[in-house]
């Protein structure tokens, strides 16, 4: 079985084979012999080439949350077709010319108005979440095209607050 897993923008290719009670996993060209045992709903015990690891796992919204020895990971599975798609997506997100809050919060202050020229990295809007003020910076150089909220408004995560027309 072949798999592609995306972990923090990095894609890893795996071949997984189960024979004689063990997983034979080829990860990015390296072979691993893995004994796996389910401890509980959220806990898996692994013996990877004889070394012992306890892994905790939960899933939500199509993502896997894993923890190994205190390190945390967010892993998504991709198929070959949407690898290309997701690649384009992720670069698309980076370039998307909007200011949005990474989490739900309240708009405290809009620092720009329509028609303003802004530099990449310039503060566009201040959002308060969990009692902390956070300045949302412009991802691009360009002109303010639209301001969708006013101070005091509540915003959801990823909702565009300020939209920028990028400079060509």
């Amino acid at each position, binding site marked *: 079985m072949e798999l592609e897993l995306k972990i923090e923008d990095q894609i890893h290719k795996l071949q997984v084979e189960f024979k004689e009670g063990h997983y034979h996993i080829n990860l990015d060209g390296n072979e691993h012999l893995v004994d796996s045992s389910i401890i509980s709903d959220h806990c898996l015990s*692994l013996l*990877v080439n004889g070394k012992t690891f306890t892994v905790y796992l939960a899933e939500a919204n199509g993502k896997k949350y894993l923890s190994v020895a205190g390190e945390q990971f967010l892993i998504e599975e991709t198929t070959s077709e949407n690898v290309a798609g997701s690649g384009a997506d992720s670069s698309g997100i980076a370039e998307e010319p909007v200011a949005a809050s990474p989490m739900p919060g309240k708009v405290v202050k809009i620092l720009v108005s329509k028609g303003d020229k802004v530099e990449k990295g310039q503060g566009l809007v201040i959002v308060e979440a*969990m009692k902390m003020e956070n300045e949302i910076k412009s991802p691009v150089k360009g002109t303010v095209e639209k301001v969708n909220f006013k101070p005091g408004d509540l915003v959801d995560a990823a909702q565009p607050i300020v939209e920028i027309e990028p400079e060509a």
Partner: protein
Amino acid sequence: MLSWKQFLISLTGSKVENLSNVHMIQKILIANRGEIAVRIINACREMSIPSVAVFSTVDRNSLHVQKADEAYCIGNPPPLESYLNIGKIIQVTKKSGADAIHPGYGFLAENPEFCERCEKEGIIFIGPNSKALRLVGDKVESRKTMTEAKIPIIPGMMSSGKQTKGFKEAAEKIGYPVMIKASAGGGGKGMRVAWSPEELEKGVEAGMREAKSAFGDESVYLERCIEEPRHVEFQVLADNFGHVIHLCERECSIQRRHQKIVEETPSCALDEKLRAKMGEVAKKVIEVSGYNNAGTVEFLLDKNKDFYFLEVNARLQVEHPITELVTGVDLVRQQIRIASGEKLTFTQNDIQQRGHAIECRIYAEDPENNFFPSSGKILFMKEPSGPGIRHDCGIYSGCEVSVYYDPILSKVITWAETREDARKRMLLALSNYTVLGIKTSIGFLAAVMEHPEFIAGNTQTSFIDKNMSDWKGKRKERRFVNEAIIAAAISSSTRPTSRKRLQGKQEMPSPWLTLGKWDLGGI
């Protein structure tokens, strides 16, 4: 001087002469939420005092509601409608028959109006008297008092302002860089450094907004920014009969956004002589303020070991457990006993530091994204335990972390004979701590614990900026990426696991296999 054993006996057994004015509190309402509410509820239970929780509508399922003896809803999620709603909290206190309120930290803990209201209503406020609270809570007023008492303070403005005018002149006089601070502040909210007049204007404006939203008072003031300082504070206990003792220091220099995330005691920067000197000044601060109950006197300690009084935190501190572990004194119990009118049953000479304790605060936040708060459902958690590991916790598997409140989830505290042992024990505890579904600071804190500068004890308040700003890059070098990927692949595969195999069961659907359907790449 008492032996350690005698000392413990003196903590647990009240002397007869102390009982004359004592009216042991009958029932305590905890006007707070999260880990600190749980901590106080546990102390109540240990003392056989019934406890009353209050909660906002979004906190119905919070741990403090489940742990208390009684719980009442006090309003909508925004703090002003619930945890800051004085009228409602007083009303519930009376309805429940509680004769005392413990305010925890944050929310109403340092609000003199609330404290006064309790006094007027005949409810015991487990904290200082309202007069002392008003004095130490007003940073400008307390600076004046401390100047008169010859307590060393940082050069700065003797008045606060609500308008940006006047700040520029004051800043010139004090000398850049200056620190902008909220007059009613605490917890780093509204606090900013300005290195130039341009930054000053922007900073004062933002500081005022944050102060207004956090404390309902936009006043800010300026003081000189001490470079390369350490944040060293002294825990004090003062009974209602004028007995004041200190329980040594806590060093809280590791901060992000001017908010502490790692604390330890003893401080590497103090020797016996300096500790005794600072402790005496801390006691004097408490005495001249007419302060009673538990409090903390904060100092900045500079490179030359000169120290300056910062402020009194008139509450139980987030980091109080490290003091409890090295001194053996339960501060919440002491607060309740002092508020009940008991005398302190031990003296300064009875207080000894034993071993070393470190606390790491676990926040729901993303250390890779400027510590931006993270909210959502905790899908699964497993807490650390073991010898010398304490976990003060407000969360559980399946609970929701809401956007309305401070994102502190829990605190891991370790104790051991030496600093190095306590540090290694903390690393063990953090590596055994799993929180899935939201971002937390656990991995970041482990990296702090492993940093050579932390190991060396070079903990100045600039530690995070100086040593950890490239952490995001280092994160790519995490050690267990391969194992995580392998586990994810196995959980995605439809093969039976070895255990199922050994048990001879055929393709039993396990949670690992039924968690989700995956679109697998060509098999």
